């Protein structure tokens, strides 16, 4: 060992990449050796497994088909369903008046006009009593043709006011869709999308409800708060209590930086874990959920938003909890109280996002806004599904309507996404600044 003299002036800021990675790697190794880390990881995996089992069971069950528009019934007992009698212009209420063709099975008229999930269409206008609204119009969506066929004599009588353009978009048998600050407005013409596929609706609504529900509660809230509670609160405090902190900070590293890299190790650990869980969830639900192809690729961005929101929440909560740990040895207790507050705010956010201004004083609100913004963008027909489900009393609607919320911040999903992310990052930075300032001035007795 030589006794060479080294310049001191730049020793704190030199080789910072080496020091930062050393602290991060050390923190990761420390997590790996703790039994509590394994226990928390296992609890998360068990939770996901259990919930997935329920999900798969729900998705593989079959819902009894219901004839929402009643056209499969043989009202007069002549062996012909209402739809067939309408089609041939015979009286559905007179048993002696029936079509001169073989009777078709009633099942032909059940679930025969499903919802149109696509938001594609031509630009159009709706003009009702002089009030014009812009939107897009879906055409050729009358699956069973009962709106489009003019030879269905009696039906045309039944259509009533508005005829085959009851939504006033100047297009017969269409669905008018407009997007504005209040959300999405979807208005179909009469006899369009009037007899949805119950089974398909159930699985679709339950799938969306599950992804949003578990994404918001299971991931964003529960994992978002419990991972930091157990993994971040003691990030600095545990070292202070066990008196091993000096080995780490008795080096040419500013305490604030040390704290940042310590948090870095925690972020890497939790983000990696969350990425694994969301990947498992997205893969299994992607294969099991109803889809036109073998996999629901469209859901990937929803899962990505859940992962993104949870990572930001884990980051914000982790910084807050570890700062509590710096301030007091009762950091865990303070974090639990904070967690209770967050729980209340999360529940309020789920009940009615945006209705309670106080929810904006929570991390949970902003995290859920991120998921809501992306789900609004990706599943832009969810409101339509909910309103139709409520109208026909379809099974599965409750799951979707409970967890689907239109974001209350920003004029568009992208704005919401940006604002919410910025708020969470901002909270993290402010709390980190407070924490590192306190740590710098902390005497280690």
């Amino acid at each position, binding site marked *: *060992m*030589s*006794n*060479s*003299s*080294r310049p*001191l*002036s*730049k*020793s*704190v800021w*030199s*080789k*910072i990449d*080496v*020091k930062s*990675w*050393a*602290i991060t*790697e*050390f923190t990761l*190794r*420390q997590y790996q*050796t703790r039994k509590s880390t394994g226990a928390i990881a296992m609890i998360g995996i068990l939770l996901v497994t259990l919930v997935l089992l329920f999900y798969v069971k729900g998705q593989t069950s079959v819902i009894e088909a219901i004839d929402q528009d009643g056209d499969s019934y043989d009202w007069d007992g002549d062996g012909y369903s209402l739809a067939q009698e309408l089609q041939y212009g015979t009286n559905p209420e007179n048993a002696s008046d029936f079509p001169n063709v073989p009777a078709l099975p009633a099942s032909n008229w059940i679930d025969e006009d499903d919802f149109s999930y696509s938001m594609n269409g031509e630009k159009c206008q709706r003009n009702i009593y002089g009030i014009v609204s812009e939107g897009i119009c879906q055409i050729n969506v009358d699956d069973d043709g009962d709106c489009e066929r003019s030879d269905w004599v009696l039906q045309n009588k039944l259509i009533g006011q508005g005829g085959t353009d009851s939504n006033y978009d100047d297009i017969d048998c269409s669905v008018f869709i407009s997007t504005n600050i209040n959300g999405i407005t979807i208005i179909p013409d009469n006899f369009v999308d009037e007899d949805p596929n119950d089974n398909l609706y159930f699985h679709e609504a339950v799938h969306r409800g599950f992804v949003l529900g578990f994404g918001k509660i299971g991931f964003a809230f529960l994992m978002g708060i419990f991972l930091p509670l157990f993994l971040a609160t003691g990030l600095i405090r545990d070292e202070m209590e*066990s*008196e*091993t902190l*000096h*080995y*780490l*900070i*008795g*080096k*040419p*590293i*500013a*305490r604030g930086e040390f704290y940042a890299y310590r948090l870095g190790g925690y972020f890497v650990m939790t983000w990696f874990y969350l990425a694994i869980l969301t990947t498992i969830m997205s893969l299994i639900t992607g294969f099991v959920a109803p889809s036109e192809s073998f996999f629901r690729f469209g859901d990937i961005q929803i899962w990505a938003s859940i992962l993104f929101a949870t990572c930001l929440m884990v980051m914000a909560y982790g910084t807050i909890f570890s700062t509590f740990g710096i301030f007091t040895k009762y950091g865990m207790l303070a974090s639990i109280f904070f967690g209770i507050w967050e729980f209340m705010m999360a529940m309020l956010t789920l009940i009615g996002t945006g209705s309670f201004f106080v929810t904006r004083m929570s991390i949970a609100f902003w995290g859920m806004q991120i998921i809501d913004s992306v789900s609004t963008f990706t599943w832009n027909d969810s409101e339509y599904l909910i309103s139709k489900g409520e109208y026909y009393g379809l099974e599965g609607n409750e799951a979707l309507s409970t967890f689907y919320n239109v974001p209350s911040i920003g004029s568009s999903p992208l704005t919401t996404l940006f604002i919410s992310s910025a708020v969470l990052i901002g909270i993290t930075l402010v709390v980190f600044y407070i924490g590192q300032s306190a740590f710098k*001035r902390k*005497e*280690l*007795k």
Partner: protein
Amino acid sequence: MNSNDSTENNSANTNVVPALMLDHVSKWYGNIVGLNDVSIAINGGVTGLLGMNGAGKSTLFKLIVGKLKPSQGTVRLFGINPWENKAPFSKIGYVPEHEKLYDWMTAFDFVTIMGRLFGHSRDSAEERAKHVLKFVGLEDVMHKELGKYSKGMRQRAKIAQALVNDPDLIILDEPLQGCDPLARTTIMNVIRELGSMGKTIVVSSHILSEIERITEQIVILHNGRLLALGNLHAIRDLLDKHPHRISLTTKQPRELASKFLNHESVYGVHFPAENELLVETHDLGNVHRDMPLILEESGIRVTAIENPDDNLESILEYLMEGR
């Protein structure tokens, strides 16, 4: 940083900046005084910091390594305030008093990661870790987990982590506490060798004989105050002129007592136990010089000789009386 730069440069131009300097430093914990108006400057060699438990040794060290902020006065490491600026830590190795280590790590991993925290690359840190672990005698067991180490081995691992960056100033807080005799000898040899390399070493203990075997340069703290500073032998010479006791274990204490009473420097004898003679003197050196002759002439077998007053408490008592 600039002010520190200029401090460093100016000092280099004018005179040598001491590795460690405390100027009228006090530290209070509420109403309790941890350290009271201590001023010292240390540069080079091995310095023993002596003091009873609670004397302020650990407080002094914590102030030096920037864990505590002085309530009053200034602490400088190589001319820089360690509370404000962590730069001096690149030249410091600190061995804390407590036993806590990362038991799940091997000594090699532990010292390597400590090296990386100084900014050394992984390869460089590993090389340094091997070198210092060999230096402290842990080469053969460096891949064993620290949790499986004995007390002495743990102390040596702590010393190794302090040496990994080849520090100019090494601070060891009670490094021999709880170690077995073999480990003590090993650690003392390590400290002496580091001292011979020209490092500035400050080592604390509350046991006089331990420090005596390592260095002659001592600082004595008592109740947070600096009680003495200087050469241990000079203090000991003063102490030797002070009333002192010598305990001899023998089967014929009374016969032996008569021989000692004839000595000019002995003014009293006692028999605290059946086989023990306690000789009282005001010139310890003189009695020790003549003792072999007295014992030889008496022909009485003595199985043990101890100086009960040759300890830190006695020195402290003496120094306190002189105040």
